């Protein structure tokens, strides 16, 4: 097979960081080649260079054996490289067709919508994509929006397609569909670079190039290696995320329920039913997992349980006290801690320093004020204690948190929430984007707190949930489609529930 696209000794530096160092990568015609690695390993940077968004400091790119230079994505597009970004670049107010067409005109002033429409409809038929070109993006679900991104590349007659974490927002069934369409593409001569950190996807590729800290560790065929070997290549050491957890499954009837949710419904400002008839309960000392593809109501559920939003109906009891309709202040005062999924947007003030972030939410509390003023001494003492206790790596307590790494910033939130909560911890994707070492640490901290405490843990990594939780609730389409026992469930069972199906008999638990 001939090599279509290749990078030779490519090095890309940003201020203070070497994102790609001496990377040699080659894509053969008609293959699906996976770029595998942790966050920050350099996958996105490499693909951005291949797409012309960045220009490397050293090294060069070859296409069809000839050296090329992409001054901008325009050049890459002209040579037939298309990219589907992880975070979509779509215009909500436009239709599908307008999004595909905008910026593709070579010359002239005419829009040419009629011919564009027939081309797009043809592409949809050819690849089996079910999309009406005249729908507005606003009315499309996230999974469907991704097809628009893919169509944008196909419309420009891409020969090489770069997919950046495409299944992050898809259910297992939708992911399978995507891979089937990818097979169609290969059959038609497309070559695909797939960026992913999911083992299941890596194993489906023809070849895998593993990146670690900006360097290529190796290029292998998935059929020749084991998953463990790949993980070792990715991380550099043997990692066993098997956190020993003694799960004394307490008799549910005797465990005092900390959180009881009954029939909660929430319709958002757009009129969409984000939460439908949610009922669950979490007992003392229990970790309830929450599985499901992002965008199916998990965020709204966390916001409802922390008082950020008010559901239109239903009841929420915290240690017996009715909480629905009360603002977040009351939840915090009642002992609820929240680790939000968007840590810099919802959990921290990025420009404030560690000390100020540690007291975020408690700035009026007696413990931290003296009369009408803030008591900087007490706040500082608390911050210093927590920095040491949680081993937060920082030059000082006065460092702004946007200078911290993602992991250390997360530790700030974790420390603050664990310190100030007493009954319930809501953890929404607490380990997303973090390195394995920090992930282990976060989970250990969460498990360590037990007496009178309950935890709701949402994660996209089903393996983690299966490992750590007493029970797992699965959400799809704003509903809880099932609550299962991790000891008797498999990923396929949960995947089925995530797609809205019903649990198998063996997995279903009488609640």
């Amino acid at each position: 097979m001939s090599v279509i696209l290749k990078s030779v000794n490519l090095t890309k530096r940003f201020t203070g960081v070497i994102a790609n160092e001496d990377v040699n990568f080659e894509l053969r015609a008609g293959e699906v080649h996976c770029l595998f690695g942790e966050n920050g390993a350099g996958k996105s940077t490499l693909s951005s260079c291949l797409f012309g968004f960045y220009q490397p400091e050293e090294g060069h790119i070859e296409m069809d054996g000839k050296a090329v230079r992409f001054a901008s994505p325009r050049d890459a597009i002209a040579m037939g490289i298309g990219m589907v970004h992880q975070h979509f670049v779509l215009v909500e107010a436009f239709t599908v067709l307008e999004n595909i067409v905008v910026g593709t005109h070579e010359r002239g002033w005419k829009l040419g919508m009629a011919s564009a429409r027939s081309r797009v409809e043809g592409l949809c038929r050819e690849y089996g994509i079910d999309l009406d070109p005249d729908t507005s993006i606003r009315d499309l679900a996230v999974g469907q929006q991704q097809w628009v991104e893919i169509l944008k590349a196909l419309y420009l007659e891409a020969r090489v397609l770069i997919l950046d974490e495409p299944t992050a927002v898809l259910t297992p069934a939708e992911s399978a569909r995507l891979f089937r369409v990818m097979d169609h593409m290969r059959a038609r001569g497309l070559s695909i670079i797939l960026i992913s950190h999911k083992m299941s996807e890596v194993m489906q590729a023809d070849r895998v190039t593993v990146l670690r800290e900006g360097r290529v560790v190796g290029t292998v065929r998935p059929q020749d290696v084991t998953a463990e070997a790949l993980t070792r290549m990715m991380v550099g050491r043997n990692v066993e995320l098997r956190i020993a957890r003694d799960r004394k499954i307490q008799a549910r009837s005797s465990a005092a329920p900390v959180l009881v949710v009954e029939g909660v419904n929430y319709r958002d400002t757009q009129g969409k039913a984000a939460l439908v008839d949610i009922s669950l309960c979490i007992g003392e000392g229990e970790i309830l997992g929450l599985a499901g593809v992002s965008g199916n109501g998990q965020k709204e559920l966390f916001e409802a349980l922390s008082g950020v939003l008010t559901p239109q109906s239903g009841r929420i009891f915290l240690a017996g006290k009715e909480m629905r309709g009360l603002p977040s202040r009351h939840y915090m005062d009642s002992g609820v801690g929240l680790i939000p999924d968007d840590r810099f947007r919802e959990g921290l003030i990025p420009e404030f320093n560690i000390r100020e972030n540690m007291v975020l939410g408690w700035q009026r509390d007696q413990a931290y004020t003296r009369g009408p003023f803030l008591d900087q001494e007490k706040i500082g003492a608390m911050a210093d204690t927590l920095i040491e206790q949680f081993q937060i790596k920082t030059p000082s307590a006065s460092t702004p948190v946007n200078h911290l790494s993602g992991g250390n910033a997360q530790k700030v939130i974790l420390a603050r929430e664990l310190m100030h909560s007493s009954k319930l911890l809501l953890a929404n994707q607490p380990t997303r984007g973090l390195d394995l070492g920090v992930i282990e640490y976060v989970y250990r901290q969460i498990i360590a707190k037990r007496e009178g405490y309950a935890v709701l843990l949402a994660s996209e990594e089903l393996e983690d949930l299966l490992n750590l939780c007493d029970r797992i609730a699965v959400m799809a389409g704003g509903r809880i489609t099932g609550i299962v026992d991790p000891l008797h469930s498999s990923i396929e069972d949960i995947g089925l529930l995530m797609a809205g199906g019903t649990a198998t008999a063996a997995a279903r638990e009488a609640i």
Partner: protein
Amino acid sequence: MSELFSEAILISILAGTVRIMTPILFAAIGELVTQRAGIWNMGVEGTMLMGAFAAYIAATMTGSVWLAVMAAMMAGVLMGLLTAFMTATMRVDHFISGLAINLLAGGLTLFWFRIYIQGRAQPTFDGFDAVAIPGLSSIPWIGEILFTQRLLTYVAFAMVPAIWFLLYRTRWGLELRCLGENPKALDIKGINIVRRQYGAVLIGSVMTGLGGGFLLLGFSDRFLADITAGRGWLAVVAIIAGNWMPRRVLLAVLVFALLESIATHVQVLGLNVPHQIFLAMPYLASIFILAGLRHKTNQPVRLGIPYFR
């Protein structure tokens, strides 16, 4: 108040409306283009003022109205370059830089005006005369209102469908609207965002400058320090009230001009109603419109947000 409803007065009010509309319409439609590209040009008032001033200088120095019109448009270009530099190149906050530009324009025009006059009586000029369109202007009522206006008024009205066509039926219009909604989508395709923003700002400023020029040439024979008197702001308000759509903006400008025309007539006729009520109505109305629109707004998503790669 019943004096207002005599035939002659009504015709005068409506004809006045069309005339008053002209400068505001130029500015509003022009700035609509700028805003759809994501730039919130708060310096409309200042640009209009500069346009009026440039027209004045040219008119009194050369005696030619059309040279004055060119001067007004040139002033618009210069102000537009400044605005675009601040917002697209330097990526400064749009609102504050607009306020600074207003302040600058106010100071500069007054400063240069004082120096220009330098002790003598203020020079005057002959502005635009109404042009009666043959045939159509003889129609009772409408003839006098619509078809006996100044040339630039007809141009202003023609700009509305022209801009509509530009925005919705050309490829540049699509790309321009994309600028205001999600510039990254264009950046990814290698389109030069800054250049496009300059273009959008210049279109707006040239038209605003032209509007300022008309404000001078079509209404009076001399320059006054506060000749714009908030009309630049009214143009911005009209864009908001028109929910960023060309036809609705035209309607908003019509209503505002009507109110101003009524206010002027009330004042001139010495009626016992505070004319300020009519002047205040556009502003009051906009607040209500915005409060009511809330989620159904058509405001470009990235309006006012500087684009960083």
